[in-house]
């Protein structure tokens, strides 16, 4: 039995496998079919200060080895999370992490401040990379100034582990990563979805209600892996890798590229129990190679 424990700043995790925001609900939706305590961390769905209805239907399109979505951050707001969801999830034996979004730096900070008061939530993931909302979201994540302004505001309001989720829809992701590191982020997670579209040729119309959506699934993995490798080389804070991970082999690739932990997203839709299987699979691979700890392979890829 290898040692799978890893850490992201002050956040200690029993294993490096997390579930990505927006693909695993609040965890409890999946408890019938997967042991939530076998997962290192659960990043719950994107939460904003005020409730949001999200975009109109249709919000998804299936694509080769992946899917597009334009959900648009539908959620019932941070107050609903704190009062209704938090009591149900706070005692689950894994790290519950809240993904926080907003439409201005102050908006992000207000939401983060509410989460800061919850004693069993030890980290937030800041979503400055959602491609599906007009106000805020990715707009902050595509410039160093925008990313810095959000992280600066949130850092003042939030004292625990602060993870910043980066957009791949930029010319130089390394500069954004360095900018948020300089503002005091404890970690970066990457990548969020790649902006794309799909067309129904019979209707001569784009398939998603807002025209574009975020691409996820195994089709984005090589892009994500390349970006994780580049960012991990350039920053001194721990990196969390995600983008198309669907197996233990995929996860180990990201860890070797420099990720201290990984997130599983779209693969949860195909196999709701995949996260626990990937954690087990990483252990089995380490055992088979006589490697004592997952930390021994972080960033070892040449």
């Amino acid at each position, binding site marked *: 039995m290898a040692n799978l424990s890893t850490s992201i700043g002050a956040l200690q995790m029993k294993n490096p496998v997390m579930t990505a925001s927006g693909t695993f609900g609040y965890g409890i939706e999946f408890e019938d079919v997967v042991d939530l305590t076998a997962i290192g961390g659960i990043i719950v769905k994107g939460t904003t200060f005020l409730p949001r*209805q999200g975009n109109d239907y249709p919000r998804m399109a299936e694509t080769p080895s992946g899917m597009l979505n334009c959900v648009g951050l*539908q959620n019932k707001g941070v107050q609903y999370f704190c009062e209704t969801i938090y009591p149900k999830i706070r005692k689950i034996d894994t790290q519950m992490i809240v993904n926080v979004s907003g439409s201005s730096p102050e908006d992000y900070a207000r939401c983060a401040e509410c989460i800061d008061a919850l004693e069993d939530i030890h980290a937030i993931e800041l979503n400055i990379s959602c491609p599906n909302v007009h106000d805020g979201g990715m707009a902050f994540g595509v410039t160093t100034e925008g990313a810095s302004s959000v992280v600066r505001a949130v850092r003042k309001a939030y004292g625990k582990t602060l993870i910043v989720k980066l957009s791949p829809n930029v010319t130089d992701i390394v500069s954004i990563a360095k900018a948020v590191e300089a503002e005091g982020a404890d970690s970066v997670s990457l990548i969020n979805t790649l902006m794309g579209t799909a067309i129904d040729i019979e209707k001569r119309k784009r398939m998603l209600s807002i025209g574009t959506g975020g691409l996820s699934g195994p089709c984005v993995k090589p892009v994500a892996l390349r970006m994780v490798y580049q960012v991990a080389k350039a920053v001194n804070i721990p990196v969390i890798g995600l983008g198309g991970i669907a197996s233990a082999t995929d996860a180990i690739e990201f860890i070797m590229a420099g990720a201290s932990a990984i997130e599983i997203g779209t693969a949860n839709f195909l196999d709701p129990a995949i996260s626990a299987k990937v954690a087990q699979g990483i252990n089995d691979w380490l055992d088979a190679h006589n490697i004592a700890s997952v930390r021994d392979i972080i960033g070892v890829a040449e």
Partner: protein
Amino acid sequence: MALKKHIIDLQVVSVEALGERFVLLKCTDPNAPLPPMMPGQFAQLRVDGSKETFLRRPISINFVDAKQNQIWFLVQLVGAGSRALGRLKEGDTLNALLPLGNGFSMPVSAEKKHLLVGGGVGTAPLLYLGAQMNLMGMRPTFLLGARTKDMLLQMEDFQRVGDVYVTTEDGSAGEKGFVTQHSILFKQHFDRISVCGPSPMMKAVAKFARANSVPCEVSLENMMACGLGACLCCVEKTVKGNVCVCTEGPVFDINELTWE
């Protein structure tokens, strides 16, 4: 209390072509009794073997044969995913996540007159619903619509379970026209209507039900990815705002919807 969900490797017992456009899959769990499932609930079936069919396919529960430990799925062959399901062979494994969503309301007493209206492949969940009503000592009335006689499915099964009335658009069976034009609607009073079929048909039945003050439920089939309320893709506008069809539905009281 929601029924417990399971991921099961079902084994295909038989694959029966119903005309050129439909396939009836009968499956079993070779290792255990199938879990309890309600009429109107659905399964997310895994479709492997092609990069074009990446996601699971939501398919309604057509029938559960407790004695034979079988679950039936009626699949319309429309896209790459459903055609892949149609190519399954006896003995193949079919990975299913089930049961998902909420079922139809069951009648409060056996004396109540219950009308089940189906169109096209939307007739599928009504067979299991009718069979469950039989267990309550009730014989429901079915009103089934199709484009042509050839597209009326499982008629012998429906006739065993209830009284069946039919419309076809070309008049090749039953009364000619749409279900909402059938004379049975104007001859008999019903205490509740349950509907599954194409959206225009369900909207027309909902309008009839509202005009006659009959409680009515419809089953929606919005595109979805997860089936568990996580991806938030299958939303429908309701009086409570956008809600997931997979977890708040697929069956909705028409008064919850924002249909005209």
